[in-house]
């Protein structure tokens, strides 16, 4: 989760930066998914690398951080050739493998290569900073807070008294207030504020992505069978009509209410793709009865709300194939 959080922070920070305004637009254009996959991979790689380094270099990191902050304050814009040389000059030298990977990624993408490289390296630097900060300070405060919290339990007598107190007149409210004070005082007394155990409910954020990477891809048949067995054993017969209806809805026998008329119909196409079908007519001759016929076909298809765009395109392509097969016959005429 911390890697995801840091990535979100990076993206927000990147969007704020003036030179990095192009990055979100580039992502939107076309190379979004491969670039994001590459960035994810680089981000994951980088988390492991920084964890190891943390174990090695504890003392030097603080001084290096200060140096980096100063350098970043000087170079907010990050022009092209300086960015590459400054990677080596900065306090915490980036892993040369990561630098090579970043340059490979930037060269593979068809856009402005040097700029992409500098952006990627800047993001890597910011990753390292945020992970260092998190590992030092952030998580401990939350743990302290949660370990001191407990579930407040009411005795049934108190609960009954409270409910009756709500219904009764004002005369009882004084009694209720005194009881509240007593309970709150008692809760403060037997638990002082400074005594606290480490509950260790939450594991360190850095260990999670390692485990997640390992155990993703292995759904064997035996696992599936086991899962089916477990589901069959734990599936109790429905206790009432509501549970029966829930089961039917899951199986697909019963529709989901409120009824959605477009269930199963996933037409993501815009209206203009349904109506302006002339671009599919490029394979046909421009004059003659066939063109006339196909224009009528297209007119009819554009008014048809029941077919998806794929089906309409298939329709037109079928006609194209048909007329191509009959070309000899048509040329005789």
């Amino acid at each position, binding site marked *: 989760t911390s890697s995801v959080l840091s990535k979100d922070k990076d993206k927000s920070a990147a969007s704020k930066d003036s030179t990095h305004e192009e990055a979100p637009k580039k992502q939107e254009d076309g190379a979004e998914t491969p670039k994001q996959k590459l960035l994810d991979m680089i981000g994951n790689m980088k988390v492991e690398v920084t964890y190891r380094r943390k174990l090695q270099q504890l003392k030097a990191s603080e001084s290096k951080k200060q140096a980096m902050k100063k350098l970043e304050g000087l170079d907010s814009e990050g022009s092209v050739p300086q960015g590459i040389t400054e990677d080596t000059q900065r306090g915490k030298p980036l892993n040369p493998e990561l630098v090579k990977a970043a340059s490979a990624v930037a060269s593979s993408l068809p856009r402005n290569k040097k700029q992409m490289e500098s952006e990627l390296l800047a993001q890597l630097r910011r990753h390292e900073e945020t992970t260092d900060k998190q590992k030092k300070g952030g998580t401990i405060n939350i743990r302290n807070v949660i370990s001191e919290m407990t579930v407040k339990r009411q005795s049934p007598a108190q609960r009954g008294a409270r409910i009756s107190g709500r219904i009764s007149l004002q005369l009882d409210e004084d009694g209720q207030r005194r009881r509240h004070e007593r309970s709150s005082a008692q809760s403060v007394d037997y638990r002082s504020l400074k005594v606290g155990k480490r509950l260790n409910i939450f594991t360190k954020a850095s260990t999670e992505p390692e485990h997640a990477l390992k155990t993703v891809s292995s759904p064997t048949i035996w696992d599936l069978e086991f899962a089916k067995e477990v589901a069959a054993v734990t599936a109790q017969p429905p206790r009432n009509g509501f549970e029966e209806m829930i089961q039917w809805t899951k199986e697909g026998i019963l529709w989901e209410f409120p009824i959605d008329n477009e269930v199963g119909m996933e037409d993501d196409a815009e209206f203009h793709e349904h109506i302006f079908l002339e671009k599919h007519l490029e394979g046909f001759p421009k004059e003659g*009865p*066939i063109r006339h*016929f196909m224009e009528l076909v297209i007119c009819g298809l554009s008014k048809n709300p029941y077919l998806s765009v794929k089906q309409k395109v298939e329709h037109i392509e*079928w*006609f194209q194939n048909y007329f191509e097969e*009959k070309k000899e*016959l048509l040329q005789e*005429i």
Partner: protein
Amino acid sequence: MAATALCWALRVVQQVLPSPCPRQVRSYYVDWRMLRDVKRRKMAYEHADERLRINAIRKNSILPKELQEVADKEIAALPRDSCPVRIRNRCVLTSRPRGVKRRWRLSRIVFRHFADHAQMSGVQRAMW
């Protein structure tokens, strides 16, 4: 004794597991006519698009007549069960070909039976 028992066991096995190569026709439709109707419906669904398109070429005043004649021959060459005209709306429960109400897909006798036993939702004996 043992031989006859073995033969009987084999026959039972053969009945339960008929030859696996062709598709089993064993299903729980009411009778064979209903099964044939089911087959015709499936074929009509498969060839519906083609038939629509070839008919669009045939029923046309723009395209040349030679092309339409060729289309005529093509549509005649399609399998006979693929035309929707051959489908008969039979009763779903008794496979009765006549007296079937389309809304419930039931024959009049079955419909009346269920309606009298109050098993048809929203159906009441008419009285006015």
